């Protein structure tokens, strides 16, 4: 039996090997998702047969009520909910345990090359919504010194990449390439995490100086490591996306990937205002996030909303129903357009431009 790592997803280290317990526990969590599929398929069949869902389409509260009525006596929904909730509750602790089991080999692969270079706006800048537990990241995104490595190399590898359809890193490339210009000189990635989207931006626009902003120091530390291993260097700042502290008019592209659904609507509005402030006149905004419910099938909209409610996603519904065109226009942007890049309208991208001076 070979000791080599199995197929390595795009952008992940090939030399991450877990001990038997950590590997099999992570694979168990992955298999729970597959094991639930027959149950979920029958729930879907049952819901799609109901005209009530079609009639309630477009109104998520009515859609949920209609589905609740159809499934009131069906134990499969409860089992799927309890299983997914348990799965999410233990996912990060299991990944942390798996890392610790191999910490002597993995910690050197996780360490940032120059952590003192990461700018930090400090605790007083951290907004209240950051304190909520989202994505079931028990202990918080900074709950472990190497949470960035743990999340990117273990949680993504074992759970997110195998469980979600489509090429999730390829989606980031396509969004990066959707920016209107062929070249940029200064790019800011808001909510950059471990740099999954940042790296795609850096690859799409290799001449640009790239800045990544995130609230998690642990994620930024691993972003710095990933940038170094890709042969590049980014300015990294720990700050909220809506209040970066960066100089105004210092970027020609401000971008984000799946940031907006992590925050309440008033913060989303502030992020657009902050992007406007950061951009030079004529600069571009490219924000990609969850698909609006109105563009999903009734079943998919119901599932998104049910899953978000049961999956530590407090702001999914508001993000899936907010009118980002209006938000962008209110912030001062023009040339606003939206584009769906994949099935069921995900990724859903909003592109806008800060007008040249005198044209606003």
């Amino acid at each position, binding site marked *: *039996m070979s000791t080599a*790592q199995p197929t390595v997803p795009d952008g992940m280290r090939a030399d991450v090997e877990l001990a038997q317990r950590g590997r099999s526990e992570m694979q168990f969590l992955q298999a729970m998702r597959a094991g639930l599929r027959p*149950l979920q398929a029958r729930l879907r069949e049952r819901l799609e047969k109901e005209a009530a869902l079609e009639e309630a389409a477009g109104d998520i509260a009515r859609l949920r009520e209609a589905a609740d009525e159809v499934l009131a006596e*069906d134990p499969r929904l409860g089992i799927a909910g309890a299983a997914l909730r348990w*799965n999410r509750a233990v996912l990060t602790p299991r990944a942390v345990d798996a890392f610790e089991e191999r910490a002597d080999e993995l910690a050197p692969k996780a360490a940032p090359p120059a952590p003192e270079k990461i700018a930090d706006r400090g605790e007083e800048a951290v907004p209240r919504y950051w304190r909520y537990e989202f994505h079931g990241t028990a202990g918080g995104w900074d709950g472990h010194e190497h949470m960035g490595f743990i999340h990117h190399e273990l949680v993504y590898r074992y759970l997110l990449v195998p469980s979600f359809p489509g090429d999730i890193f390829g989606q980031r490339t396509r969004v990066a390439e959707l920016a209107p210009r062929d070249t940029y000189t200064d790019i800011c990635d808001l909510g950059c995490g471990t740099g999954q989207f940042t790296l795609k931006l850096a690859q799409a626009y290799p001449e640009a100086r790239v800045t990544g902003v995130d609230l998690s120091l642990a994620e930024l530390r691993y972003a710095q490591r990933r940038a170094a291993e890709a042969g590049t260097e980014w300015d990294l700042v720990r700050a909220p996306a809506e209040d970066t502290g960066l100089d105004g008019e210092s970027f020609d592209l401000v971008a984000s990937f799946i940031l907006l659904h992590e925050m309440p609507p008033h913060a989303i509005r502030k992020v657009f205002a902050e992007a406007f402030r950061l951009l030079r006149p004529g600069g571009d905004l490219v924000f990609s996030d969850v698909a609006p419910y109105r563009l999903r099938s009734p079943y998919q909209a119901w599932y998104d909303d049910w899953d978000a409610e049961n999956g530590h996603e407090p702001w999914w519904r508001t993000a899936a129903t907010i009118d980002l065109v209006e938000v962008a226009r209110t912030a001062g942007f023009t040339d606003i357009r939206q584009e769906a890049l994949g099935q069921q309208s995900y990724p859903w991208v909003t592109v806008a431009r800060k007008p040249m001076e005198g044209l606003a």
Partner: protein
Amino acid sequence: MPGFANDDAVHLDRPEHLDALFGITMELASELWVMRDRLAVIEQLLDERGTLTRDDIERTQPQGENAERLARERERFLTRVFESAARPGGK
């Protein structure tokens, strides 16, 4: 009557207890899977080498057919767990 022996004590009588019991079931299922996986690795290594060390077990990353077989067994195992949990009263 309070203060006297209760011959038919019921402690887990709230709806939340059902979710807690489900969580315990999943913990046990996870642990059972870790053991099944470990046994599969041991059997494989014994087939290949005739002898093994603890480190051999820890370092082995199942590949190809072995990885696929384990993935199929994991999925079948969990499908059975969920199907039996969902069966009472299911339509």
